[in-house]
């Protein structure tokens, strides 16, 4: 695996192998020495053109746990404000010795552009590009679901997952639809019609406009953040109306099956798409998701940098 750009790049066996690797790496956290020497002497650059807490910290922690050196770049306070392009920024980081670039960018397709343009030799990991994809988030969601509903083994075949909210602007939803499908789960998207993307009928999932209809059947519900910063039109009449129809509150959560779990990729708008009592309830796995994010990203960095096609490797003998 030279790059990780999209959840559609992964077939079932690759996805399961990444999850298995992450599961083994998770045990490092329990040891006296919480570090592996695997990527010693290698440099991972975090290139973040968009704000992020979880993803950036999580990649940083993952790289450090594998003993890589980390250079972190955030667009705010950098020469991007002077007009420096993605290409020049990436060339700068590579000139400083970065062998893998973790890229978050507001433009859909930025990671692919960086990986395939020939500008740089470094491996590229997509950490969210516009409204397109966020594959490591999908991997950590799949990992969390597998941990809680499948005893941490194999794939997710037969699992029914409902993804609720701002599908239109959600790269998390896109990556999850493809990855969960690859792993055998059945995905249903629930959103107001205005927040369902054009062309959704070609996606491998079902679409519903009624949350109460699908909740009793679900094994897992993933609530998405309403992305106010990307809302350029009136997608729903009012926040109150949105949360009344598509928010997960205690009354709705009680319609869920006993074993069903609740996920949220964060950051949460408490009171909007999810109420505080549900977010803090035992069936909420939000904190597990964050913890698993580090293990999953360790697995991704290991797989990307161990690839003989990456700049580190020579042709195998």
């Amino acid at each position, binding site marked *: *695996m030279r790059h990780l750009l999209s959840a559609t790049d992964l077939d079932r066996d690759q996805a399961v*192998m990444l999850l*298995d*690797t992450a599961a*083994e*790496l998770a*045990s490092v956290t329990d*040891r*006296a*020495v919480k*570090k*592996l*020497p*695997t*990527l010693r002497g290698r440099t991972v650059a975090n290139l973040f053109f968009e704000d992020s807490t979880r993803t950036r910290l999580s990649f940083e922690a993952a790289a450090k746990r*594998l003993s890589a050196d980390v250079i972190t770049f955030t667009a705010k306070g950098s020469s991007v404000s002077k007009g420096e392009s993605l290409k020049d920024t990436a060339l700068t980081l590579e000139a400083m010795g970065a062998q893998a670039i973790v890229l978050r960018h507001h433009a859909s397709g930025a990671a692919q552009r960086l990986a395939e343009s020939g500008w740089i030799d470094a491996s590229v990991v997509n950490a969210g590009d516009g409204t397109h994809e966020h594959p490591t988030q999908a991997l950590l969601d799949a990992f969390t679901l597998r941990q809680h509903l499948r005893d941490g083994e194999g794939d997710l075949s037969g699992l029914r997952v409902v993804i609720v909210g701002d599908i239109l602007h959600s790269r998390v939803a896109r990556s999850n639809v493809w990855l969960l499908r690859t792993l055998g789960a059945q995905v249903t998207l629930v959103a107001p019609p205005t927040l369902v993307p054009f062309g959704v009928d070609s996606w491998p999932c079902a679409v519903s406009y009624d949350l109460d209809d699908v909740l009793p059947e679900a094994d897992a519900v993933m609530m998405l953040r309403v992305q106010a910063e990307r809302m350029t039109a009136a997608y729903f009449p009012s926040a109150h109306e949105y949360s009344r129809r598509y928010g997960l509150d205690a009354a709705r959560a009680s319609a869920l099956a006993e074993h069903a779990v609740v996920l949220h990729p964060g950051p949460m708008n408490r009171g909007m798409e999810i109420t505080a009592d549900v977010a803090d309830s035992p069936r909420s796995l939000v904190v597990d998701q964050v913890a698993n994010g580090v293990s999953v990203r360790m697995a991704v960095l*290991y*797989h990307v*940098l*161990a*690839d*003989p096609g*990456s700049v*580190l*490797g*020579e042709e*195998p003998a």
Partner: protein
Amino acid sequence: MPVARVLDAADLTRVVGRISHEILEKSHGPDDLILLGIPRRGVPLAQRIAERMHSIEGVDVPVGSLDVTMYRDDIGLRGARPLGTTDVPLGGIDDRIVVLVDDVLFSGRTIRSALDALNDIGRPRAVRLAVLIDRGHRNFRFAPITSGRTFPPREPRMFGSTWWKRTGWMRCCSARPRRVAHEAPTECH
């Protein structure tokens, strides 16, 4: 590729018996011993040795596994390998005599990685090595305290062992290499 059987199931039982006795003899008994198999095939071998030790001494010697994948020196050369399980017996390895168990010893690189891995887990009193097949041709000088079969270095050959989980049988084969001597051991049937 001509394949020769080195150890069949019955040979293996005898070899495991001898290896178990030798480990016990050289460690002055089972006290403080821990067997750590190196995945994949060192793990079932370590379990067999522990079973045998139980029948000899009547004591349960702790068995675990030690995955060395993340400590290898060829990361970036061969692609990502699937990780094995690291499972250290309760109580850890501090002040114990750790016996690393693997099926084939060749360049010694795996054992070098294993020593690094042990370093991150604890501080054993001593580390010893037991292998089924010693192929010679060492790049790193490690000497096993006991081995099932030793092959002279004049004839580079490949070795592989097969393990059947269900029956608990295992056998070892050797074959002449197709190209070069320094290939990873391959499985043969």
